[in-house]
């Protein structure tokens, strides 16, 4: 009786497959339309104007914002800094996350406690984390300099150029526990029989890791690389919070070394009220990120391995 009723329920849904489909995808489509497509389209329109954010008397300026930004030395410099930051942090984040995951993928006493300890920093809100690190990095009263003094290292001004760049990287790496958890899940999904077979064939632990484990988890590494690149490119809160802020407005005096692309965008929007120019910068950045992501995607054919089942499907 129950089974018959359930069968009737299933039939009602399956009788209208297209309606059912739209019903289930509509929350996402609505969210995408309102929160992604609409702002993107709006920003594209604004990028062709001289809109200052508050006056409705804007006018079209054609491609002027785009031609200006490719000649803007500050924009180019901030883009180069962002590339450098990404090139340093993404390998460290992915490699560090994988290293921690390997260490914690063992049968150790209190391994759960260690996993929690390493994961915890990544759930601390970014604002709290940045403020905490700002206190740690303080030259006169920070704990980092207090520790360094114990080993006879003089006080370092961590939050000014050029050290501010390294301070930002340290702050970023503080959150590598998030990647560690994903890597850990991937490692635990590697079939033990494959690794055992390699050991039986005489492979060393390094060779097993290099030629069995890493290829097996390469799709997850690929995912981490792509999301890491995108996140690194878009970083803005951390440099702003580490910088000296005037507290009474939106202006933060960000050191040159951490004046990344999104900080430049922030400055154009909120210091200079150049919403049109800022929007053009965002669109160019979108294209740059897309291009780099596509390059990484293309390269994945060379190093990402997917499991293939007996029917040849992924």
């Amino acid at each position, binding site marked *: 009786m129950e089974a018959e009723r359930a069968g009737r329920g299933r039939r009602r849904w399956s009788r209208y*497959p297209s309606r059912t*489909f*739209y019903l289930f995808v509509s929350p996402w489509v609505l969210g995408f339309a309102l929160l992604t497509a609409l702002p993107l389209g709006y920003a594209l329109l604004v990028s062709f104007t001289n809109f*200052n954010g508050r*006056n*409705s*008397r804007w006018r079209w300026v054609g491609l002027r914002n785009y031609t200006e930004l490719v000649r803007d030395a500050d924009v180019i410099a901030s883009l180069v800094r962002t590339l450098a930051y990404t090139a340093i942090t993404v390998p460290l984040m992915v490699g560090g996350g994988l290293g921690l995951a390997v260490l914690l993928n063992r049968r150790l006493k209190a391994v759960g406690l260690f996993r929690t300890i390493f994961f915890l920093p990544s759930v601390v809100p970014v604002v709290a984390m940045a403020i905490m690190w*700002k206190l740690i990095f303080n030259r006169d009263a920070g704990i980092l300099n207090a520790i360094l003094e114990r080993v006879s290292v003089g006080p370092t001004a961590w939050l*000014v150029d050029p050290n501010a760049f390294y301070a930002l990287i340290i702050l970023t790496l503080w959150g590598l526990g998030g990647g560690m958890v994903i890597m850990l899940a991937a490692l635990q999904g590697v079939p033990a029989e494959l690794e055992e077979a390699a050991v039986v064939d005489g492979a060393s632990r390094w060779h097993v890791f290099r030629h069995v484990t890493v290829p097996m988890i390469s799709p997850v590494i690929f995912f981490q690389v792509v999301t890491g690149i995108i996140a690194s490119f878009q970083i803005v809160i951390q440099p702003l919070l580490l910088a000296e802020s005037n507290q009474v407005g939106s202006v933060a005096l960000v050191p040159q070394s951490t004046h990344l692309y999104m900080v430049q965008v922030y400055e154009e929007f909120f210091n200079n*009220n150049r919403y049109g120019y800022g929007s053009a910068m965002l669109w160019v950045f979108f294209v740059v990120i897309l291009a780099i992501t596509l390059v990484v995607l293309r390269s994945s054919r060379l190093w990402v391995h997917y499991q293939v089942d007996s029917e040849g499907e992924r």
Partner: protein
Amino acid sequence: MLDRDISRRRFLTGSALVAGGAFGVPLLGACDASSGGDSSGDGKTVTLTVMYKNNELTKEHIADFEAKHPGIKISFIEYDETRLNAMLASNEPPDFVRAPAVGSAASNAQGLTTALDPYLDKSTVLKKDNLMAVNESFRWDGTRTGQGPYYGITKDWSQDATLWYNRALFEQAKIPPLSTTEPISYDELLEIAKKLTKKSGGKTQVYGLGVEWAWGLSSPIFMMILQQGGQVYNADLTETDMTTPEARRAIQWYVDFGQAGVGPTTLDPAPDGADLSLFLAKRMAITQDGYWYGGNFVKESEEIKNSVAMAPAPVMGDKRISPTYVGWGAMIPAKARHKDEAWKLMEYFMAGPPSEERAGSGWGLPGLKSQLSLLPQDLPYQKQAYQTTQAELPHVAQLPDSPYITGGGWLPVLDKHITRAIKKEITVDAAGKAITDEINKLLKQGKDQIG
């Protein structure tokens, strides 16, 4: 099965309909909102949309105002510049908005604010001849500030270049206290700051002088230029020249200040970006802040209350002027729906009980001359600050305000090049030239935006 039933075309068409519906609903809603009254069902109560800071216009003030004006209800929005911009751009602004006097030129030039003269002329509580000079910065005649109609009223303000200092730290350094009525020169101030600064092992124990670096560099530099008889902008406020002898001397002073290491700068930032915590911890001997700063000490220890003193703004040149850098107040947007009711709130807030409360608290000077007598004089330091203020008020002056750039536009440019000069990467002359070029570019862009 599903693949066969739903083609890509059908999916895209369906999605477009869903998305269209999603866009359409709020648009229709907006139409409804714009056509509808924001009064209540009885047609008599007006809902006034107010954007302010809730620690300045408090719940108690709102309840009191509503009790005294039964036909007006206040819908309160916490002050948020980004939200305000969006509301102004969509022609749906609040009716009453927090706004600065210095910096109001941009809103006034863009026609975003309401001229208040018709209301002032009729008002029995807010009279033009009772307005403190700071309100002049809210005036705009179409080309410059200080003339033409008033576009806002100041709630409180200070002459922000004045000094507060810790007499105990002066005594320790065997330096006589500063005069309460006569200003010292900027050069003397820097020399005193050097003597007051204590360093050890690469750390600073006591800073001699804080200039609230992160809060702004443009206003004090403008003041220094004006004190020497110079000009910041050209006649139509579209260009600046930071290579003039007056501007060069001002920039040079900031470079000397940074190189001397006597106070926080971007190269030696204050932990929280402001001088107060260092000053209260007796790690800063002098801080450059206005009369409002005295409000901080009321609840501090007796030791602090007995040590602090106020001194006049320093001078650079022959002209003693002591301006306000901001002067927060309120304006009524040009597209506000309930201007008459907003004016009633203006009268209540600027001349009623909240204004008397503010004046009596010591958190700034009142916007009305008649309320100067309400300034607190209970504590010795308050009496002394009152005397200094009396001596300082005749020297009040207006800072230049171009509608084509904000203080937020000036600060990063000044900071970047002055910092480079402090680090000796460039000369002071090169810094002045670079600042001039970058600010003129921003001014040109601002002019292009406003027209």
